[in-house]
């Protein structure tokens, strides 16, 4: 039931998709990492796969450093950077356990990785080389960059806020306000706070400023739940992506739905049609005109028959993404 504003990407990965990320400057380039061990670069405008490179094991996250360099890491615990012009790989470094997150901080010009070895490592993208290892209290499950701040979500529902310019000590240690495991954290483009989702159908909106008046504004809401025969079915909320201009955000859950939320008026702006399977990852492009939706079963219920993995590119309008 896709309208003319939505289409599927060709030559997608052969296995589950772990992450989709748009280029920070070019509105039509998309990186896709997958459990088939590949990282692919797509030109979504012409719907073509431009490049593909391989890891020796499933890849869990990828990120652009600049329009011509992609960074990726996964179960092989190796951090790779790939030059998209020359199609050349370089292994930058390793973690002691699989790498779960890869992000770039433009303000400090540093790549950040988080791993199940309970550490966050910083990397200088120019040389490229390691710029420090920072132990976290638990395995890192998600992380996001807000200006020069790094927000890390770990096991045990902990959230840590670091200053990327001064990693000598943790700025803030928090406990997630949601009762269940943290699934995804994404920072607001205005750097005021972050949205945090859990595996049990809830999202929390929190603020970075520790002063009491600001902290009072934080809230949480239920979402991605379906009522069937009187029983409420609760789904994990796997993906969050912010619209860079409006500061509204989209969430994707294992129920196959994508919702767009206005965090300031605390309203849902829009819900798209149901996708064939769980939403594994979401990404707005940098001018907020397109949303990449990775519909990919994540084995949340074990190894069962599932629809094939697809990446949908949807053109979004202000009506869907702008606060009213």
């Amino acid at each position: 039931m896709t309208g003319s504003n939505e289409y599927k990407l060709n030559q997608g990965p052969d296995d589950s998709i772990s992450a989709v990320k748009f280029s920070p400057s070019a509105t039509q380039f998309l990186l896709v990492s997958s459990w088939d061990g590949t990282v692919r670069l797509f030109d979504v405008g012409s719907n073509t796969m431009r490049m593909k490179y391989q890891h020796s094991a499933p890849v869990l996250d990828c990120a652009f450093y600049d329009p011509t360099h992609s960074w990726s890491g996964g179960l092989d615990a190796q951090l790779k950077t790939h030059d998209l012009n020359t199609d050349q790989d370089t292994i930058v470094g390793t973690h002691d356990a699989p790498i779960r997150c890869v992000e770039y901080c433009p303000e400090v010009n540093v790549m950040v990785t988080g791993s199940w070895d309970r550490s966050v490592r910083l990397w200088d993208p120019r040389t490229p080389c390691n710029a420090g290892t920072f132990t976290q209290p638990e395995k890192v499950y998600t992380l996001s960059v807000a200006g020069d701040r790094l927000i890390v979500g770990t096991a045990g529902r902990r959230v840590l806020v670091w200053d990327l310019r001064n990693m000598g000590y943790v700025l803030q240690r928090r406990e997630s306000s949601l009762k269940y495991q943290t699934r995804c954290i994404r920072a607001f483009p205005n750097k005021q706070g972050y949205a945090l989702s859990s595996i049990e159908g809830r999202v929390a909106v929190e603020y970075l400023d520790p002063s009491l008046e600001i902290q009072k504004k934080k809230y949480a809401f239920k979402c991605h739940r379906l009522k069937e025969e009187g029983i409420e079915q609760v789904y994990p909320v796997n993906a969050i992506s912010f619209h860079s201009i409006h500061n509204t955000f989209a969430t994707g859950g294992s129920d196959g739905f994508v919702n767009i939320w206005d965090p300031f008026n605390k309203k849902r702006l829009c819900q798209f049609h149901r996708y064939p399977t769980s939403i594994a990852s979401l990404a707005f492009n940098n001018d907020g005109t397109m949303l990449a939706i990775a519909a990919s079963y994540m084995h949340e219920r074990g190894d069962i028959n599932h629809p094939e993995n697809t990446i949908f590119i949807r053109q979004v309008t202000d009506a869907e993404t702008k606060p009213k």
Partner: protein
Amino acid sequence: MAEGGDVDWELSKENIQPLRRGRAISALHQALSQQQEGDSSAINQQRQAFESELRMYDGDDPLNVWDRYIRWTEQTFPQGGKESNLATILERAVTRFTEENTYFDDPRYVELWIKFAGNCPEPLDIYRYIQAQGIGLKQASLYIAWSEQYENNGNYRKADLVYQEGFKKGAEPHDKLQQFHKALQARVSRQVMMNVEEDDSDEEHKQPERVSLAELKSRGKKKAIAPINRVGSAIRSVHSGMQSHAAPALGNASNSKLVVFDENKSHAGPSEPKLEAWKAPPTSKAKENKQKPGVWCDVKIPLKTKFGHTLMAPPPPKPAFQPFVEESDQPPTMTPCKINPAVNTVLSARKPCREETPLKRLQDHHQQHNEAVSGKPQEQSMYCKELLLSGATEFCFEELRAERYFKKMRQEVGGQKDEASASASN
């Protein structure tokens, strides 16, 4: 003093918790050296391997995995403590099998319960719960450990009764039970002998001694003056507390009586509750070290007037003037400071939660299980919740899938090796 080569562990022996079964020296050395070098990645990997085995195991003896995991934890963390996570693993292990009768007489399972009881603030409550559930009734080790607990509390009578119970139930191995029972009896009789000796020596000389908090006969006609010689006949009466007189010399009549505890008067020890069928284990009453840190600054000590009424101090009035604010171009730079959670609970790392003890959690688990069996659940989690949370540490979806992937890779590599060797031998 140990003789022979490697005795490095002697240097830190006060930090090493003793194990009932003793420690393997090689494991102890490795654990100590790993800690010295701060090398935790190997330990983390090993722990992750156990956690994934717990989730992926599909044989018929899941207890085996838990048992090995717990043994490894004990050997790898000689000091015990929070990092080992041992308390959590034990609790999960015993809770996991509370409904599985097949394990009830398995000596490994009983051993887990004994270790768990040792970690709890009220072990005796746990033992009674075990008995009520019918776990380990034929295991000598249960009665031995239980009796030991009574003995530690100084209750020899109960310690002996436990052995009687064990004999009655025909606990095995019988010889072991008898042997430990005899040892207990020997200790008890030694204790009695020592007490008897002390009593004898007491009666020999009894000089008049001062008694604390005794009422003395006062000298003097107009004013009550305490006597100089305060022994023997100078004592008017020995009360267990001070009493206010008809004509108070000090203080107001409204001063409440200070009752001083007299241990000889009170009944001996808390009475044991009757052994009746337990539906759920009792809540623990020990509050030490169980309270989570909470906000302290809003507890006020009420003020008292001189008549003894409690007053709340009026809040200080707002200053009538406007406090001076220095004008400057820039706002003060944010100097990094540590946010003290006691002062600012907004970002407290650990929010104060209701008091939880292992027994309370067992009770909740029991209730939940009964509810789930009888009633229809209102909420259904559409993901493999048990798999994520079933171990002692949590997993995320990707970790679960990663473990399946690694297992498959290992099998494939193993298969390839077999093929290679098969074709090589042909």
